[in-house]
Structure formats: C-alpha cells, structure tokens
C-alpha cells in the first residue's frame, strides 16, 4: 500500500515536470520565436539599453535567457515555474500568475457548479432509469441522454445565447457581472454580497446550463449502467430476504455501490471541465482562464497562453492524484487490491 502511494506521488511529479519540459520546447518552437521577436522589439524601441538590460527584460517576460546554452535556459525556466513564476504577459505588462489568479476563481465558480449540478441530475435520473429498466420512461430518457451527450457543449451554448440571450433577452450574453454592480463579498454587507452573488450567478447561468445539459446525459448513462449491474447482484436478494426496507436497499446498497466507481471519474472530470472552458468561455465572452488562453493565442502573448496551459495541467494532475489516493478510503473494496481500481 505504501509503495502504491509512493509510486503515485512520483508519477505525479514526473508528469508535471514533463509537461513543463514540453511547454519549454513548444514555447521555443512557436512561430517567430517569441524571445527573439520581443528582443528585436526592445532593441528597436530602446536603442540606449545595454545588452545585459535587454536580456534581463526578456528573461523577466518569458522566463527564457536568450543567449544562454539550451540546458541553462531549460533549468532556469523550470526553476522559475516551480517558484510560481509563469513569466510576464507581453501585452498586459503584468505577471501571468496575476492574470490567472484573478481569472481562476471565476472559472472554478462556474465549472464546479456546472459539474456538481450535472452530476446530481445525472445520477438521480440514471438511478431511476435503472429501476424502471425497459419502460417507456427509461427508453425515452436513454435516447434523450445519448442525444444530449452527442452535442458539443459550446453548440448548446450558442443556441442558448441565441434564444435566451438575444431573442428573449432573459439572460445577459457575456461578462462576469453587470457593469453597475459593485463587486462586494463580505460578511459586513450581507445584502450587497447576496445581490452581487446573484448577479454573478445570473451572468454565469447560460454557461453552466450548456455544460450541464451535455454532461448530465453522460453521467445518467453511466449511472444507469452501473445501477443495472448492481441490481443483478445476489446480495440484493439477501438484503430483501433480511426484510430491509426498499428505501434502505435503494440508498445504501444500490445507490452507494453504483455511485462509488463514478467518484474517480468526477475528480478527473474537474480537470477536463477546466480544459473544456477554453471554447465555452470564449462563446460567452466570460473572462475565466480558458478565455485568457485564447486571448493570449490571438495576441501572440505566448507566456499567458502557456501559463494557462500549465495551470490547467497541474489542476488535472492534482485531481487525478487526489482521486487515486482517496479512493481506497471511500471504497473499502479497493483497499485490498492495493488501489488498483481502474
């Protein structure tokens, strides 16, 4: 067991380091090598600057020492990343970590709500579908789930903006909160805080809706499959023979055993929800981390783009790592197998 934890930790570290390595080389390969381009720009605009000054500035922006040998550049880059230094945004002129830490709460806010909502809806409907297996209710909802799951979520987003945003004007079509709203979060001003949170939720609702509609279909199908499998188990017959109430069987026996395998999938989905925000936030012009990734790409602001990529990857690595370490605690069956639950 101990060795398993050790191996998983080592693997998480190796993953993070190799992604950083990948980022380093991708950054060098970017069209028009950003370091050279930025350096040329500096020399052109500030002819009085000394060579060392220019190198220093380039290093500050991109985390790359332009003249140093490759391995030195690499070590410098990774060491910077490990200290939380993601470089400086070329266009905004502020550290990338600042932009990301300002945008990240908004992405976490929307994505965690969407994820939890879709999970709750999905497993409830999935369980009912499994209980009514073969009925019209089950067949209809199965087809609906497959259909929902086969539409890209940003297409649901476009449709919802179109109808609920522009045509019916029920929801705002972009932004984090209304311009006249003062962002206040504090215990001392409960009314303003509530009003602000409500406004933020109102702005995020279409984004959350588009993610939820699609993802709930997927969760429902998985939950349905798991529950049907559990419903066929013999220990349910024993439980019924023991005279346990149907309610207790449904929650403690069927529900629990069917949901547990989805726990890992849920934690992994957090990471992928972050990744999926790249397109979804652009559709809703919602300035979260995914939005800034595309902004960085369009403005050739590579430090910003790469910073978002690295933060997202670390989030996924953490999610998977936590899922692997804690699964044994939640599902006792996995413990005996050394956590090899996949």
């Amino acid at each position, binding site marked *: 067991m101990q060795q398993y934890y050790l191996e998983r930790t080592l693997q998480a570290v190796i993953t993070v380091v190799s992604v950083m390595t990948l980022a380093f080389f*991708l950054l060098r390969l970017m069209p028009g090598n950003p370091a050279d381009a930025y350096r040329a720009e500096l020399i052109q605009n500030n002819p009085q600057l000394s060579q060392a000054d220019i190198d220093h500035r380039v290093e500050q922006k991109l985390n790359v020492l332009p003249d140093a040998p490759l391995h030195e550049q690499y070590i410098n880059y990774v060491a910077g990343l490990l200290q939380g230094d993601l470089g400086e945004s070329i266009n905004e002129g502020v550290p990338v970590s600042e932009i990301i830490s300002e945008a990240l709460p908004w992405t976490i806010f929307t994505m965690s709500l969407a994820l939890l909502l879709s999970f709750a809806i999905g497993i409830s409907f999935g369980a009912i579908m499994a209980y009514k297996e073969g009925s019209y209710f089950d067949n209809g909802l199965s087809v609906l789930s497959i259909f929902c799951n*086969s539409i890209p979520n940003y297409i649901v987003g476009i449709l919802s903006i179109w109808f609920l945003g522009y045509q019916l004007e029920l929801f705002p079509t972009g932004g984090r909160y209304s311009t006249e709203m003062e962002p206040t979060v504090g215990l001392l001003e409960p009314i303003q805080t509530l009003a602000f949170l409500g406004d933020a939720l109102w702005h995020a609702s279409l984004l959350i809706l588009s993610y939820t509609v699609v993802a709930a279909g997927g969760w429902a199908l998985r939950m349905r499959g798991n529950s049907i499998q559990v419903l066929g188990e013999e220990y349910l017959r024993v439980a019924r023979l023991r005279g346990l109430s149907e309610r207790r069987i449904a929650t403690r026996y069927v529900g629990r055993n069917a949901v547990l395998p989805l726990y890992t*999938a849920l934690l992994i989905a957090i990471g992928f929800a972050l990744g999926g925000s790249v397109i979804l936030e652009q559709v809703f012009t919602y300035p979260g981390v995914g939005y800034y990734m595309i902004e960085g790409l369009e403005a050739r602001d590579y430090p910003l783009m790469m910073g978002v990529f690295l933060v*997202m990857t670390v989030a996924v690595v953490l999610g998977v790592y936590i899922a692997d370490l804690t699964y044994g605690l939640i599902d006792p069956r996995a413990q005996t197998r050394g956590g090899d639950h996949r």
Partner: protein
Amino acid sequence: MSERTESLRAIDDGDAFEAVADKTMSRRERYRRLFDRWVLAPGRIIRGDVRARIGASILLLYALVGLFGPRLYTEPEVNQGPRSITPLSEGLTHPLGTDNLGRDILAQIIHATPSMLQMIVAGGLFVTVLGVTVGTTAGFSGGRTDRVLSLLTDIVMTIPGLPLIVILAALLEPQDPVVTGLVLTINVWAGLAREIRSQVLSISRHSYVEASQAMGLSTPTIIVKDILPNIMPYVLITFVNAARQVIFASIGLYFLGVLPYDSVVNWGVMIDQAVSGGAMHVMSLAHWLIAPLAAITLLSFGLILFSQGTDRMFNPRVRARHSSTTDTADEPADETTTTTGGGIR
C-alpha cells in the same frame, strides 16, 4: 469463430488426425471465410439492431455526400444567388437559402464534408494504430518497456487535451485535413493503449494463448490471431471517440479562429461567419446558423448510435445475450462510449 467450430467437428467425427491446418485451405475458401467474417456477419448484426441500423444509415449518408456531393452540387461562390434568402423561398435553386454574401448554404455544408471525413479517418487511424501498438507492446513485453510505456500513457492521459490541441494548432497552423486530424486526436491514443494493455495482460493468461505460445507461434501471429479479435470492441469505441473529438475540436477551433482557413472549409467556419454576420440577432438569418449545427449534431449522433449498436458485432458474449433475448431495449447502455464532459477530454 467458424474455424474453431469446424476443427471441433473434425474431432467429434473421430478423425481428428485428418483435421488439416488452415494453410491448406484453398485461396477461394479463405476469401469466402474472410468475407463471411468481416462483411456478412457484421452486415447481419447491423441489420438486426435498430440503433446500428440508424447509425449506419446516417454515416453512409455523410460518406456519400463527402464522396460525391462536391462533384454533383455547385461550389459555394459569392453572389451566386440573392443575398440572405430563407430556405425554399426561391423554389429549389437554393434549398437551404443563402448567406449575407449570396453563397448557397447547402453548397457550403456539402463542400465542407470531405475535409471533415478526411480529418476523422486520419485521426481515427492514427489513434488506432498508435494505441494498439503501444498497448500490445506494453502488455506483452512487460518489465522495463512496460513501465516506461505505461508512464508515458499515464502522462499523455493526464494532459488536458483541448489546451494542448490549441497550442499545437497555433504552432503548426495545419491546413491539410490529414495533419489537422492528427493534431486534434494527439491525446486520444493513450486511453486505448491503457485499455488494450490491461486486456492483453488478462487475455495472455488464457489457455488458448498459452497453447499458441507452446506451439511456437511468433508473437505478432499470436497478437493478430488470438488477441486482436478480443480487443476489437475497444478499438471501435475508441475510433468513434476519436471521430467525435475530431468533430468537437475542429468545429470549436475553426469557430474560434484558432485553426487557419481561407475559404469555408468547415462547418465551424460557417458558424463563426453566421455569428459575426448577425444570425443571432436577425431571425431571417437563422437558417445560416441552424444548418451547420444540425449537420454536426446529426453526424455525432450517428456515430454514437453506430458504436453502441456495433458493440455486439465483436463481442461474442454480448452477441450470445443478444441472440437469446429478443428485446434489445434492455441492453445496458455502453459505458465507454459516453464522455464525462460531453466534449473533448
């Protein structure tokens, strides 16, 4: 299947010693068996299953449109018709109407299909070949090779696909549909490789694989004869997943303008132009937005139905269950075809 039952019959008849090896089959016989196994049997299963039938018809429709559509239907050109007319308003000259530059919408849909199919096939083949190769190699060789390949697989599985694809698209600026297909599926092979590795590990403990090894058959022969038929369902499901990722990601990235284009090469380009052309504000332009959305959804829906239906094609256990029950509706939904985010992993 048929080969095995035939050799069994030979043993039953008491002349097991006269049972001959496959090698002595006449060429015609062998082709007929291949045809039975790979064309006739799958065809029968598709015909017998509602989902597979609908899915296959949808896919066939897209394939036909992709192959022959561009030759039969006029190319989209600026001012080929009146601007912004609604569907069917001018009879059948512009059945789906035109956009704000007078380009025929149906022509845009049709002429974007071949590159989409090329991307799907390229991505699907890339994922399948790489996943099967890495998975079987890791599963069979064990030891250090296995550890290194498994670590690599785990790393690739953890990297969020869409951001990586965005960066690669910016780096490579792919124009060719085949290259685009490879870029868009860069991370999908890992899931297949892991699945196949664990399958190989469990299958290679089966007695028939040990028997083949004892007979001195080469590893590639064992992989093709004994292992591959068992992992075909995973390959098919991964192919469908890769196809869906190609569709989702390509439409999304063309819509965002991350992938470069100079003409309407993709439905995502159509959505982008429709949104910036004001189709969301003006109801009379709605068809411009709905047409590409419908094309995407139908193709994706067809792929899922097809993969769920054909799961039976390769899975002898499912096939047995299928033949014993007449009601196909109570088939448990296939877990692996659903994605957790409804999008790109």
